């Protein structure tokens, strides 16, 4: 179908699209999508949780309150488990880039190599300092231990930046020239810092902090609903929830930026996101709905809404799907619903933040503790999983909205997939392993959360005195 640009013969990679079965292509997409969707949750916790842990540790040192120190140690323990799981599930992804999409890597591997090399360095630094942070809790003076944690946060954020730069390149492929199908004149820096990088990376990093914050807060919201309202649980709720509430309004602004970016650079994706079929002005904003032949059906329409959002004027022209052949349309219903759900959750979390602000403002006038009514806690408990849903929806918009392309406008997923037989079997195997890993991760984390609260690092006892290879 869409061999548009890359038709030149390049013997070293070649084409294999005609050898690919539909089932195997679907299996490869399912496997990549699934393992990415899994990793992204753990990765977000890996970026956000260290910051929360350091905040708690810092409060603990400043106030001398054991509750904060205990929190920091608890979170550090969960961090250790999540980092290990994140490290291995991330490694699988780097394997899958080649196992499932050798057509992409063979041709463009060198173009997107640089951000991955940088990501590797950042990840290395993260792993090193995490090793010290987790295992040297009682070998270092408190302030130095806190300082050792800082590189984890910085390197974690940096790796998120680099890896999303590579994904952004798939949306805005830059930094090379195609000459008879061969990739020449590669400028790896221009490839990495492509136009999609700024909105995508900022959106993703803020999302990571939101997910880690709201998910952690949700755990303590549930505990508080069950009557445990001591300093420990209140701190465990308020530290992450406040961070999440601060980030949310910025994220909504950045999300708007990311959508405007689509209008300028990937209008077809925006058309799928908003279900715009025909190019024109006075385009309504449709909420919900099902993709029909001529547009979204059964949706809630706000007249001129999309035109106003994009260009602030009702006569702003919005490009529709009619500008590209039907074979190049992303699946509209899925992308559109994912987008609407993400936006809905964003505003729900914003409302929770406003509630917190209001409670805080009231306490300033009346004094006493921040009031935490049951409804607020219940909504905050929903907020954690909801943030994860928004994360997955956002990722769906990015990835599904790019279909059928793996490199926007240049290479379709079919041209990139591994033509070897039996990818379906691989998918089942991966699903089984991930299912087991999910069960085990959740089980271990729940146990860590329920354990008796003893203020000591898990490692201090059993590592003391053991040297390192």
């Amino acid at each position, binding site marked *: 179908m869409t061999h548009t640009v890359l038709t030149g013969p390049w013997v*070293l*990679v*070649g084409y*294999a699209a005609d050898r690919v079965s539909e089932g195997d292509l679907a299996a490869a997409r399912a496997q990549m999508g699934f393992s990415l969707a899994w990793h992204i949750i753990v990765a977000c916790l890996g970026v956000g949780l260290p910051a929360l842990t350091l905040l708690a540790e810092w409060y603990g040192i400043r106030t001398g309150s054991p509750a904060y120190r205990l929190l920091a140690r608890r979170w550090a323990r969960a961090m*250790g*488990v999540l980092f*290990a*799981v994140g*490290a*291995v*599930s991330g*490694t*699988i992804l780097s*394997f899958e880039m*080649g*196992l499932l999409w*050798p057509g992409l*890597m*063979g041709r*463009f*591997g*060198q173009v997107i*190599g*640089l951000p*991955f*090399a*940088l990501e*590797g*360095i950042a*990840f*290395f*630094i993260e*792993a*090193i300092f995490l*090793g*010290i942070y987790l295992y040297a809790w009682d*070998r*270092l003076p408190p302030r130095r231990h806190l300082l050792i944690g800082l*590189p984890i946060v910085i390197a974690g954020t940096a790796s998120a930046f680099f890896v999303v730069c590579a994904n952004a390149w798939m949306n805005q492929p830059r930094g090379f020239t195609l000459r008879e199908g061969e990739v020449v*004149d*590669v400028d*790896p820096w221009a490839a990495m810092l492509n136009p999609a990088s700024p909105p995508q990376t900022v959106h993703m990093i803020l999302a990571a902090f939101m997910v880690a914050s709201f998910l952690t807060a949700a755990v303590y919201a549930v505990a508080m609903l069950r009557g445990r309202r001591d300093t420990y649980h209140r701190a465990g709720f308020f530290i992450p929830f406040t961070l999440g509430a601060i980030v949310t309004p910025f994220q909504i602004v950045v999300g708007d930026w990311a959508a405007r970016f689509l209008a300028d650079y990937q209008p077809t994706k925006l058309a799928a996101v908003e279900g715009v079929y025909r190019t024109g002005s006075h385009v309504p904003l449709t909420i919900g709905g099902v993709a029909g032949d001529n547009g979204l059906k059964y949706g809630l329409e706000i007249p001129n809404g999309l035109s106003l959002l994009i260009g602030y004027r009702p006569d702003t022209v919005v490009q529709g799907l009619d500008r590209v052949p039907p074979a190049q349309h992303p699946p509209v219903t899925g992308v559109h619903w994912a987008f609407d759900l993400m936006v809905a959750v964003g505003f729900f979390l914003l409302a929770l933040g406003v509630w917190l602000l209001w409670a805080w403002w009231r306490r300033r006038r009346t004094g006493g503790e921040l009031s935490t009514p049951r409804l607020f806690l219940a909504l905050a408990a929903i907020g954690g999983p909801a943030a994860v849903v928004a994360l997955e929806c956002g990722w769906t918009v990015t990835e599904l909205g790019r279909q059928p392309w793996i490199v926007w406008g240049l290479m379709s997923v079919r041209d990139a997939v*591994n*033509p*070897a*037989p*039996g990818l379906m079997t*691989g998918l089942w195997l991966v699903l089984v392993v991930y299912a087991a*890993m999910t069960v*085990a991760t959740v089980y*271990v984390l729940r*146990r*860590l959360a329920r354990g008796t609260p003893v203020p000591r690092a*898990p490692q201090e006892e*059993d590592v003391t*005195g*053991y*040297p*390192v*290879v």
Partner: protein
Amino acid sequence: MLADAALTVMWVGLTCYALFGGADFGAGVWDLLAGGAEHGRARRELIEHSIGPVWEANHVWLIFVVVMLWSAFSPVFAAVMSTLYIPLTLAALGIIARGAAFAFRKASTELWQQRLFGACFALSSLLTPFFLGTVAGGVASGRVPPGLAEGDVVTGWLNPTSLLGGLLAVVTCAHLAAVYLCADAHREGRPELAAAFTRDAVVSGLVAGAVALAGIAVLNADAPELFHGLTHRALPLVITSAAAGLTGLGLLARKRFVAARAAAALAVAAILWAWGAAQYPALLVGSTTVTEAAASASVLSAVLVVLGVGAVVLVPSLWLLYATFQRGAVDQHSSR
């Protein structure tokens, strides 16, 4: 020139992965062979304490090699990953199971959980290096042609050289780990553990030697080009490896554990570089050379510069990691 530099850097990464990550897998193999829960407790504890703080950092070397290969030699990466996707998928799953189970075992308290996660950790520590070894064998014996999955997806890794590679990888990892653990046990003042691991190290070292000797016949029949390279250009490295391996066993017998560690590491490093030297300048034997597969000079120089700058940050960080725990150990000794 740049391409050779990139290849060298990648091979250094591969060597580091074999010496550090490989030993972590080997430790898992000894965990598997440590016996029942009670009987093997002391050995398992030593293994866990030795690899606990460092295995994630050691694991990064693999990611480093993968990223170097795809950035600097993209077509080779595509060819290897697509043709050998079966053993590589299995190795990837083994990596998941090993890392996750190790972390889970550390976080569990009940015996049945420790057993379950421990078994998972130990078994995958055995399987992962095996599959990675079969991949090396498939590449070294010229079974990966250029292009997307152009090679045989089954015989590409189920062949005499691959099986030799897999077996050698497992035995070598186990040997490295046993030698490293000797020194750990010795430093901990646990002579009975040091003696046990010395025995394991000698046995695994002898097995590795035997497998390598048998391998000569296998390679002669199955991978003539590799065999020719190993017996000609790479011969000094092969001899170095054998000599270092034997020296290591001698040093173990004299309880010179730290020196034995260096000798064992040299033996493994030398055999990896012998492989590299034997097939150079071919990356895919019989078809693709370093120059043909190399990325643009702009990419190679950018990646090398970035890695150079990264090393400036990484080396002191790694030093801090190892120093922190070495110092802790010293404190512990002085307080005893």
